[in-house]
């Protein structure tokens, strides 16, 4: 079933791109007014990798996730997912801003979990998870519910399918939100400070679920977090951001144990 959502873009031959490269930012710039949040940013993420974005707030980490989720548009540069332009398309040999349809097609490969969960309060937990697989992927109600129940079991909420989101704790809501994102079988999961809005005692449960997903699936993860131990556990690569640029990147061992950049050292001293 997972092939439905993914195959179209995977099968598109694109010899110019290394097969394992899933996400590429090419000279991406994003400004808010006079404030440049991302400055000619280049970086890429390979398929199946878990990448954590760290750095002081306002350094552009969340902006990267929001650009990938098409919640905002870049002011310059291009983003590719699976070798295809996300916010642009090629028409008559020219690169033009993409239409809504193209964006929707590419976006299906990407899922996101938000800091504030953003579950739909008017729907029960089960329907929160089945809504998109039914209306977007065209799954039957039975298929979608079976998928949803498996995911609810996985996040430890198999018995809360008929609850409304407001009847759940923050940690439970966030686990439902994770299940909801995974139900679309995305290739990339974006995690935007997913534990920042939680009471401290609820953080561990959510992180355990994410560790489990990182271990047991081949989903690519882009994670903005202040939970450094978690970042260390799950990451293949850590990117240190400052003022809209990546100032240092490497394995978690390298970044956390022997950072090269002063700015990284200062930041880690402040948060650890």
């Amino acid at each position: 079933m997972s092939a439905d959502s993914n195959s179209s873009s995977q099968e598109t031959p694109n010899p110019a791109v290394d097969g394992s490269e899933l996400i590429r930012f090419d000279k991406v710039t994003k400004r808010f007014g006079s404030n440049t949040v991302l400055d000619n940013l280049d970086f890429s993420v390979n398929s199946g990798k878990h990448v954590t974005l760290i750095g002081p707030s306002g350094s552009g980490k969340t902006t990267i996730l929001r650009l990938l989720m098409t919640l905002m548009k870049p002011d310059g540069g291009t983003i590719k997912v699976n070798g295809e332009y996300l916010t642009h398309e090629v028409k008559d040999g020219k690169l033009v801003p993409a239409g809504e349809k193209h964006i929707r097609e590419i976006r299906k490969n990407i899922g996101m979990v938000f800091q504030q969960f953003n579950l739909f309060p008017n729907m029960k937990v089960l329907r929160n998870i089945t809504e998109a697989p039914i209306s977007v992927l065209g799954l039957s109600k039975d298929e979608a519910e079976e998928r949803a129940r498996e995911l609810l079991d996985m996040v430890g909420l198999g018995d809360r399918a008929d609850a409304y989101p407001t009847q759940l704790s923050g940690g439970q809501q966030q686990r439902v939100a994770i299940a909801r994102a995974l139900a679309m079988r995305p290739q990339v999961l974006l995690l935007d400070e997913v534990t920042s809005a939680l009471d401290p005692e609820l953080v561990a449960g959510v992180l355990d679920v994410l560790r489990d997903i990182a271990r047991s699936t081949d989903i690519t993860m882009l994670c903005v977090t202040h939970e450094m131990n978690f970042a260390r556990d799950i990451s293949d690569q850590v990117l240190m951001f400052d003022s809209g640029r990546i100032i240092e990147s490497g394995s978690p061992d390298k970044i956390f144990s022997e950072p090269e950049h002063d700015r990284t050292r200062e930041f880690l001293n402040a948060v650890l």
Partner: protein
Amino acid sequence: MNWDWSHVDDFMPHFWDGLRVTLEALLFGSLIAFSLGLVWAVAQRSGPKWIAWPVTAITEFIRSTPLLVQLFFLFYVVPSWGLSMSPLTTGIVALGLHYSTYTSEVYRAGIGGVPVGQWEAATALSLSRRRTWTAVILPQAVRRVVPVLGNYVIVMLKESPQLMAIGVLDMLGQGQDFSQTTFTYEAISVVGIAFIVIAYPASLLLRALERRLVR
């Protein structure tokens, strides 16, 4: 002045006729106001500019002109363009159209009150525009504004006697008719009491609804 129950007895058959007209105008007028208002609100929020702008202009225009003028316009001017309706139908359309420009503002506030995170989650799940509106945004927006919409039903009830101006005999129309031909006042009193008997429980009901829906 002496209250004469026999006048009340004589008036009651006319009263029931008037009540039926009032309730009919209210029911269908509300349905038009609620559905058309939703169309205005969604068009203004997410329609293309060439739709959103005229909608804003038209609704502003209707809202800032008196219902009475619109009644006359629909009753005397529009038929000359070939579209003629019965007085009651004209009245219902005018009432519905006029109040749709108010309910549209109510819906707009309700839609604006849905957190931006809901739109973002719908985007992140690739929900279509249509699905985003019908499954996510409107259910939340409408729930918030049901009590306010209900308030407009009461306002419309109280404004419905204006339909008399184009010859619709609603409750008040019947009462006035009866009083003027018999030189008595009982009929008008019955009508006044009827307005209270309908409007007051309705507003109590709304308050209960508000406690349930708006948290």
